[in-house]
């Protein structure tokens, strides 16, 4: 046997040994499939009792918030409180969502949608996989807990990417990043402390503010619309893979004006298009709230607004593509 061949064989042996070693390592802790982890996370968020503090970061700002969640026979009870800045709160159960804004002296009550109807991954796996790739990147430690790191990467520029840190023990979300096309985070959430508890005392779910003397805004009613043709409005452009998943007509107490709410989703990201008749000054242009972008325009006496956890260009194109079929 001449020398070069011996060297090749030696190299091959080393490679095989390394491969065998890595198999042994993986056998010790097999990382679950990304989609399975996401399903578990979604169930854990709904079914467990927990109380945690997290940091919320977007553009140049950073805030701390506390999230309390209770699940019992009646369903879910949740409370989200800001710990920095104005003490705003959101109280949510299976009937309603109440947002309290002491700085505006306003309370907003909207109808909630029970979480059980929310589709789980893999809904149609192939459908989502056509627009995103999933992988378990590795492991990390957040809030003193071991976590799996899951990447969800979009295959085009119309959607955002996600990086999720999922608790190994309880499957709760410990950290998440919403990423733009260059991979830079547009929004980050990270728990610094998270406790899973046997039970949550009701005191923790009560708002600290009564909202007395505040202006209350109520959603009066909402009726499901049968199909996309309702109202005669059509969204003529949306990214590949997006489809109408819901259409609702809501009305408001004082004005009684109906608001058409069309929901589009690619199975992961979603965009809502709101259309309402306007009696005053229209709202026009882009808006951003953390990872959510909105774009508003005025068409034929109607306010058209697209809202979604997608890049600004996507909501803008969708809003601009809305036409009245009448």
């Amino acid at each position, binding site marked *: 046997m001449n020398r070069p061949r011996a060297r090749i064989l030696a190299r091959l042996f080393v490679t095989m040994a390394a491969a065998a070693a890595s198999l042994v390592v993986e056998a010790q802790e097999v990382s679950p499939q990304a989609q399975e982890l*996401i*399903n578990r996370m*979604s169930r854990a*968020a*709904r079914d467990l009792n927990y109380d945690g503090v997290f940091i*919320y970061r*977007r*553009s*140049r*700002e950073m*805030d701390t*918030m506390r*999230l309390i*969640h209770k699940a019992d026979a009646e369903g879910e009870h*949740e409370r*989200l409180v*800001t710990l920095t800045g104005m003490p*705003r709160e*959101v109280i949510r159960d299976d009937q309603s*969502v109440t*947002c309290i*804004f002491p700085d*505006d002296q306003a309370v*907003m009550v*909207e109808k909630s*949608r029970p979480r059980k109807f929310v589709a789980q*991954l893999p809904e149609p796996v192939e459908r989502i996989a056509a627009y995103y790739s999933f992988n378990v990147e590795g492991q990390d430690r957040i809030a003193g807990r071991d976590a799996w790191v899951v990447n969800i990467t979009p295959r085009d520029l119309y959607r955002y990417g*996600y990086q999720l840190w999922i608790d190994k023990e309880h499957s709760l979300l410990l950290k*998440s990043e*919403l990423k*733009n096309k260059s991979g*830079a985070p*547009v929004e980050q959430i990270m728990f610094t402390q998270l406790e899973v508890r046997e039970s949550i005392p009701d005191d923790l779910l009560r708002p600290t503010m009564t909202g007395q003397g505040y202006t209350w*805004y109520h959603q009066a009613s909402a009726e499901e619309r049968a199909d996309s043709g309702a109202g005669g409005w059509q969204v003529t452009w949306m990214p590949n893979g997006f489809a109408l*998943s*819901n259409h609702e007509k809501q009305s408001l*107490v*004082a004005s009684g004006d109906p608001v058409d*709410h069309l*929901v589009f*989703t690619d*199975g992961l990201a*979603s965009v*809502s298009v709101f259309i309402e008749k306007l009696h*005053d*000054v*229209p*709202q*026009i*242009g*882009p808006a*951003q*709230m*953390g990872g*959510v*972008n*909105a774009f508003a325009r005025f068409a034929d006496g109607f*306010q058209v607004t697209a*809202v979604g*956890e997608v890049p600004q260009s996507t909501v803008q194109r969708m809003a601009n593509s809305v036409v009245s079929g009448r």
Partner: protein
Amino acid sequence: MTDKWLESVSALVDDEADAAGVGAIEALLRDEAARRAWARYHVISDCLRGTLPRHIDPGLARRISDALRREATILAPAQGHRSRILKPLAGLAVAASVAAVAILGIRSGEEARDGQSQPAIAVQTPLAPPARTITFASGHPGAQPARAQTTQGRSSARLNRYLVNYNEYRNNAAVQGMIPYVRIVAPENNE
């Protein structure tokens, strides 16, 4: 470098400096000739006292100085503390040449760095630059408000209502639950 300065430096070496010694220290801090004289006088002093080591390494101070300059990022204290630490040290009549050069070494390291951007110790991933800020014009929140509200408050009321409804209908298994509501309770951009 006048003879007068050389005398002051000499006095400093002999620990006999008077008020003029302060001037000598200043000369040491900025004048290469003064620093060489300082080193020479120490060698002479050691020789006269018979405490001269078997081997003299005239380049030692320079090498230590260079090494310190290379490590300046680690050794140099934070910007705010730097001057406070350096001033009392410079004010003392430190009789060891190495110590004097060491201080100079740190200082020249800083000066060299000042023009550049400061190397960060912990590099944080910068968030993407904010998109255009909220430019929604005024609107009414649906229900007539009981009191006059600001334009900002009224327009965000409508957007908030949209956001709540968007959250409730999002078909997003990835980041679900209450967490999306952070966007409603988080203070608005004030940019």
